[in-house]
Every structure is written in C-alpha cells, then in structure tokens.
C-alpha cells in the first residue's frame, strides 16, 4: 500500500471509530429498552447451591464470594424503600456468599440486618436472619460480634429475651469481647424490653458500624426510641397537669406556662410534640420520626 493509501486508512479509522461506537451505544440503548423491564421481572439466580458454585469456582471461591456479596448489597440497595418488595433473592445470595467464604463476617453481620428489618427497609425475615447469624457462629465460633448480632435479633425483632441474654453471654466469653456484652446479657435478662436497654443496644451498634446505609437505619431506630421515651415522660406530665387543673392541656405550651416543663419539648429532629384529643402526647404529623410498630 502506498504512503497516501496508508494515511487515508488511518484517517478513515480515526473518523469511523467514534461514529461506529456512537451507533453501537445508540443501538444498545434501544435493545435495553426492550429487554430491561423483562430482565428486571425475571431476575433470578441460575445456580442457588453455594456448594456447587464453590466447586465450579476452581479454587477462586473467595473472590467469587466477594462478587456474590457485592451482588447482595446491590440487590438490597436497589430495592430498599420500595413498597411491596419481598427481597426474594436476598437470602439465597447471602447463603451463597457465606458458603463460598464462610469467614466473610461482613456478610453475616449486614446480611442479618438486611433480612430482619421491617419492610420496606428489609425483608422482614427475622427467622432467616437468625439462621444466617447461627450459620456464621458455627463457622466462626470466636467472633463475638456474631453473638452480639444474634442477641440483637432475639432481643429486638423476636422479643425473645432469654435467648438474647444467652447469645450476649456466650459472645461475652469470646476473645476480644468488650465488657458491655456481659452487661447486656444481665440487662436483657433483668429488664428485657425496656427502652433504656434498647437504646443502649442500638447506640452500641450505631457506634460500631461504619456503613452509611446501616447507620441511617440505626439512627432512625434510635430517634424512634428517644421519641417513645419522650412520649412516656410527657404522658406522665400530662397526668400531673390533669390532676392539678382537672382537664387535659391543649398544648405543651400550657404545660410550660404551668411550670411543669422547662420548655416546649421537641422530638429528636426538632419538631414539637403535640397533645391529641385522647389526652396523650404524639409526634408532630410533619415529623419524619416513625415510632416502632407494636
């Protein structure tokens, strides 16, 4: 080929490459429009057996575990907050991740939260979360944090205080476990279900978690518990007001004027509490704080 011919070929390639890439991208957009909705509906796991995948991974099982854990996080993240979402693939994805790498502690810990949280924040499957935590403990019996998570699941989601206390106690015996584990075991055994105990457990979880999404969920719970505690206290003050004046106060300002409160009480995000027709304190309707459902 002559020099001129070679130069022409080079310029043709330089010009044609971006054009053809653009055409490819445009075509892909159209193909996606056809297939994406269908794919979203059909999303499934082709292989659900972690043991089979472990064998198929030809020794690269720990890398595959990371891939499946990332997939579980993405799956959960893309569905969190959606009404009517069942998170059907969450448990199998977590099972595969932990079968491929039984020491993937992060998958047990966060996976249990994803599974146990009420809808639409999670799958609302505390039973599966307990199974996952127990599976984690069986594979990593010295990891005190897994006992801690199991204790939390029993305490908060299943209201099973004896089992929660046992889990905290067992965790407290593991190497490196902080003293708070034994304290929790005693507290839960003695005053299971008290707001004070719940706040202590949530505050500890919040402090020990770095992930933004999980911290958001825990902060929501902490605010709800604080609001619940505030309402209990306010209801006592309302009862005192009723005793003195023979009627319910119309607002918290009246209780402040009567000298029963030092100032207008506000919820953890700054909205003033209101007093309902039933004579009890309630969250401001505009407040984003949500009380735990009974």
């Amino acid at each position, binding site marked *: 080929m002559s020099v001129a011919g070679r130069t022409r070929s080079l310029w043709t390639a330089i010009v044609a490459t971006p054009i053809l890439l653009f055409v490819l991208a445009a075509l892909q957009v159209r193909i996606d429009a056809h297939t994406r909705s269908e794919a979203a509906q059909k999303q499934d796991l082709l292989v659900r057996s972690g043991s089979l995948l472990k064998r198929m991974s030809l020794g690269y*099982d720990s890398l595959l575990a990371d891939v499946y854990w990332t997939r579980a996080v993405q799956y959960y993240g893309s569905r969190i907050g959606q009404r009517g979402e069942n998170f059907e693939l969450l448990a199998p994805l977590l099972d595969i991740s932990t079968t491929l790498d039984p020491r993937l502690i992060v998958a047990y810990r966060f996976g249990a939260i994803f599974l146990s949280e009420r809808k639409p924040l999670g799958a609302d499957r505390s039973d599966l979360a307990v199974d996952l935590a127990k599976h984690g403990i069986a594979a990593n019996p010295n990891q005190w944090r897994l006992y801690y998570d199991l204790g939390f699941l029993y305490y908060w989601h299943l209201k099973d205080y004896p089992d929660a206390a046992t889990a905290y106690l067992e965790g407290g015996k593991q190497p490196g476990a902080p003293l708070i584990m034994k304290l929790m075991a005693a507290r839960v055994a003695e005053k299971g279900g008290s707001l004070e105990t719940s706040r202590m457990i949530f505050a500890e979880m919040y402090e020990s978690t770095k992930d933004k999404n999980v911290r958001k969920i825990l902060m929501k719970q902490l605010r709800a518990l604080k609001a619940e505690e505030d309402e209990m206290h306010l209801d006592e003050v309302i009862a005192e007001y009723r005793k003195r004046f023979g009627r319910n106060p119309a607002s918290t300002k009246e209780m402040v004027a009567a000298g029963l409160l030092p100032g207008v009480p506000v919820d953890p995000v700054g909205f003033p509490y209101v007093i309902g027709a039933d004579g009890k304190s309630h969250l401001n309707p505009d407040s984003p704080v949500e009380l735990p459902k009974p």
Partner: protein
Amino acid sequence: MSAMPGIVAINTFREAVRDRVLYNLIFFALMMIGAAILVGQISIGIERLVIINLGLSTISIFGLVMAIFIGVGLVYKEIEKRTLYSVLAKPIHRWEYLAGKYGGLLLTLVVNTSFMTVGLAAALYYVGRPFVQSDASILIAIYFILLELALVTAFALFFSCFSTPMLSTLFTLAIYVTGIFANDIREFGKFTKNPVMEGLTRVIYYVLPNFHNFNVIGAVAHGDSIAFSLVWQNTAYAVVYVTLLLLAASAIFSRRNLK
C-alpha cells in the same frame, strides 16, 4: 553441566518479551486501579478483602493462561519454524534444550508475577491500608502461585513433547481441573464403600498433581499466617513433581524423530 540451558532460558525469556507477553500487565494494572476505586462504592466492608482476593486470583489466572498457552508452543513452534534444527546442531543435549525452555518460561512468569505483586501492593496502599506483618502471608500466597505455575508449565512442556499445541492445551487444562478436584475424587471413592474403587481413587489422588495444596488465597485474604512447614512441603512437592515431568519430557523428546 554446560551453560547451554541458561542461554536457551534467556533467549526464551527475550522471545516472550518480544512477543509482547508482558502487555497483560497493563490490563492487570487497570483492573487493580478500577477495583481499588470502585469496590468501596458498590459493596460494604470488603475493600481490603477484594483487593487481595482479586489481586491474587488475577495473578494466578494470568499466570495459568501464560503457562499453558506459551508452554504448549515452546517446542512445537521451534519445530514448525525449523529453528530447532539449528539449535540442536550446536553442542547441546536435548534435555538441556528442554530445561532451558522450561527455565525461560519460568523466568517470564516470575518477572510477570513480580510486577503484578508491585501492582497489588500499590492497590492495597491506595485503599488506605497500612502494611502489617501478616502481609508476609500474601507474599507466601504469591510464592505458592508460582509453584503452581511451575507445575502447570512442566505439564504443558511435557505434553508438547509428543502432541500438538491444541491437544497439549486440552491435556494440560484437563490435568489442572482434575488436580483441583483431587480431594473430591478420593472422597468419591470413600463414598462408594467399594474397596477396589476406594483403592483406585486413593492411587489417583496421590498420582494427580494436587493443585489445591497451593491455594491459600482465601486464608491470607483473612489475614491468616501460613505455617512454615507448609511452605517447605509445597516447595518439595512442586520440585519433585516438576523433576519427574521434566525427566519424562526429556526421555520422550530425546527419542523423538525430528526429521
């Protein structure tokens, strides 16, 4: 022993470099950079784990691909191009030629793996992880990968002494995959509860190269230390197996009619 194997080894290494084999390092570097930046954003709590798992797995996979695809062509290519005749016309034994070829590819793999190790260390540094004493285990895992590659290369060279590159690739791959399942084969024998089958699978288990021995990626990713006894045992295992294969390859190649 003459200096011939060394000369052949150096030339084999030069040839691999000329064939742009080390270009795979660019891909490795891009992948490690991509993983270091992306993983923290799309997953939770596994940045360090992914970098180590991905880095070590990639070193192993790239090394295997190189060992198999270059290894099976080491001898065949020279016969095809007829360059082998001019080499063998010199005062060199056939086994020296084979040993040189093997050493050359091994040198290529060591250089390639060394660069990848530097890339892995850089990625770990990027994700803000200070180096600790237990990181020595990562180096041991890389050493084990090199032992594995040495064994695979020996198989590729062995098959290439009497077979075509296509068949040699298939044979080497088959041996590699079967070697990974060596434990399962033995367990299968026990499962049958048939003494003959049990004995047969036990023999197969000990004859097959047990590539599972060299895989400590998962353990070092979780910060486990590797026992020194395993280091010397794996080294001895690889050395004995490679010696066996090179002896067999030399025996076949020495008797091969090259006309």
